[in-house]
């Protein structure tokens, strides 16, 4: 588990000058971010603002055109034309992603989904991985579902398995990509509760979310992005209650007063 002394002084992750284009479309323009150990950072912003792309760059699922992503204790990757594939993929070992659409493996049981990484990638023994997986499943209230297949679970249950699968990698950073956007409203609470507990336990996480109330509750820092740039960042209370920038004000107002 991550250390619980909240907001240690050492940055766990430093991102600087991240640029990414899809064709002519500049999705990220010189993004700088810092995540401290134990910090919960919420990325908010209108759709198309680039927040999910930031998350995917951190996990090596997307290759930035330029910029640096550096984890304390390595790896530190500077992106450019000469960056090797191995270097880019090295980022994956430090973080684990929880996807909007869960992306569970449909041909594997809940337990198999969770132990796949520990056994196949980290080469742990199956017994050891299973034991740890069962403990984690217990925590999210899904112990009795271990032998079910994903399609036999509700969306909320599937997403909790997704979270457990990420936890089982023992990453130093957890990434959540709109983890509740695909869920029926009545199932959102269960998933958010799990995320909140993890935050309280001291996990470091970056969270892309539309749930502003939730962001205010769990996040230490909120980063507001629009059109590929960081418009404003600061303590959650400040950014969400008294945003300094007009664009942030408009966005927050629109989300809190949809009608």
């Amino acid at each position: 588990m991550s250390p619980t002394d909240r907001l240690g002084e050492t940055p766990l992750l430093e991102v600087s000058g991240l640029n990414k284009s899809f064709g002519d479309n500049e999705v990220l323009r010189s993004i700088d971010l810092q995540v401290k150990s134990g910090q919960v950072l919420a990325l908010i912003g209108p759709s198309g603002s680039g927040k999910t792309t930031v998350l995917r760059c951190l996990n090596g699922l997307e290759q930035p055109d330029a910029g640096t992503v550096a984890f304390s204790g390595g790896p530190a990757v500077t992106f450019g034309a000469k960056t090797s594939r191995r270097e880019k993929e090295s980022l994956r070992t430090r973080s684990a992603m929880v996807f909007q659409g869960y992306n569970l493996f449909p041909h594997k049981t809940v337990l198999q989904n969770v132990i796949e990484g520990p056994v196949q990638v980290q080469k742990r023994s199956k017994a050891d991985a299973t034991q740890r997986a069962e403990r984690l499943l217990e925590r999210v209230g899904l112990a009795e579902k271990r032998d079910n297949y994903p399609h036999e679970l509700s969306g909320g249950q599937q997403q909790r398995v997704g979270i457990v699968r990420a936890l089982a990698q023992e990453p130093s950073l957890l990434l959540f990509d709109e983890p509740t956007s695909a869920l029926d409203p009545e199932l959102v609470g269960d998933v958010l509760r799990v995320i909140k507990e993890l935050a309280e336990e001291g996990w470091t996480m970056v969270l892309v979310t539309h749930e502003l109330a939730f962001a205010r509750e769990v996040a230490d820092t909120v980063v507001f992005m629009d059109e590929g740039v960081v418009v404003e960042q600061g303590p959650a209370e400040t950014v969400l209650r008294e945003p300094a920038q007009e664009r942030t004000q408009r966005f927050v107002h629109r989300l809190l007063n949809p009608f």
Partner: protein
Amino acid sequence: MIDIDWTLVAESFWPLLRGGLTGTIPLTLASFTLGLALALVLAMMRISGNRLFSGIARVYISIIRGTPLLVQLFVIFYGLPSVGVTIDPWPSAAIAFSMNVGGYAAEIIRASILSVPKGQWEAGYTIGMSRNQALWRLILPQALRVSVPPLSNTFISLVKDTSLASLILVTELFRVAQEIAAFSQEFMIIYVEAAVIYWCFCLVLTMIQDRLERRLDRYVAH
């Protein structure tokens, strides 16, 4: 109305069936297995992102699909000896059918792999897998389920196509039928009988396909 010589039907049944069991079926199984292995390699080449590999696979598939199977078979059995390569009838047939199945099945496998959602690859990457690990452990098992119905069609076609091997003197069901028919001069009876046996083989295969599909059903997202 023709008079059916039931004694002939009964007498020729076992030789025909033996031709099927010892000729048609082994030839089909060998060709299909080799063909699938070839198809997998070709499909990998096609999705590799490497222009050269992808291009080679594309040209190969195009040639196989664009030329008659009988011509392919004749090139290998009758054509190759003139450039110094002589292959026996049975291996010639197995090579020709394998190469043919490889071309057709490659496109099936490629399409099945592409049908697996991109999120499955990404989920594999996020738990630290390499591209190869994700492919073998996550993508191919899911692609397999999708490819069973079209691959079964290929297999059933192959069972029937092996009758072409009779033209290069391979002893299989149809070759046996030709011999009996020539000898007895009862063409209608013998060829219909051969047809019925082919049909029975395919019925059994269709049943196996159904069961396989049901067993693999859990491999797809619902």
